[in-house]
């Protein structure tokens, strides 16, 4: 059973476009994290959201935590080729992090 569902699984867009990635669950999480992973490397933490309804901005990236703390979204404005990578959401449960299956983003010049 996949506790965290990410959508879409694959996304290919042109540079300059906007995009949103979703992370949904039937479970409540005390916090959700977003990671970015490049080929051959481990995931790197982008942000943690803790409070229901919270919005965090990291330059062109906007992260939102749902009011019920069951879902989150990542919005990228004016995507750049350097944004290409695998985006993963994760939630803490029982002392470990549970990950979604990831969204593979490709930004073409």
């Amino acid at each position, binding site marked *: 059973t996949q506790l965290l569902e990410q959508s879409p699984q694959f996304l290919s867009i042109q540079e300059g476009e906007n995009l949103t990635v979703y992370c949904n669950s039937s479970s409540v999480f005390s916090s959700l994290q977003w990671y970015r992973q490049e080929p*051959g*490397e*481990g995931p790197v933490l982008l942000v943690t959201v803790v409070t229901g309804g919270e919005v965090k901005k990291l330059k062109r990236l906007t992260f939102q935590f749902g009011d019920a703390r069951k879902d989150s979204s990542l919005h990228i404005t004016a995507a750049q080729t350097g944004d290409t990578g695998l985006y993963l959401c994760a939630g803490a449960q029982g002392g*470990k*992090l549970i*990950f*979604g299956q*990831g969204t593979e983003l490709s930004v073409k010049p």
Partner: protein
Amino acid sequence: GAGVSQSPSNKVTEKGKDVELRCDPISGHTALYWYRQSLGQGLEFLIYFQGNSAPDKSGLPSDRFSAERTGGSVSTLTIQRTQQEDSAVYLCASSSRLAGVLPYFGPGTRLTVT
């Protein structure tokens, strides 16, 4: 070192052989996690350690998989009698306490079973 290190970075082995994967966590981090990642997929939890104890081994796929941690530091993941479906990237992460503080990941070991 400054980050989590893993060795080897790549391992190719024949089906049926045993392999050992090593993880050196960030100094002072008490929690250590092992995950497995298939090509382009999310991370599958295997096991985590708090100190030298493993409170949760629920993600280990079979009894061919085992892990230990000594001295509250280095951890070894052992896969016996490897199978082709074991091929994946094995990622290790550490954090200063249970997932309340986010883990830092190593670069992974890419295991290929031929």
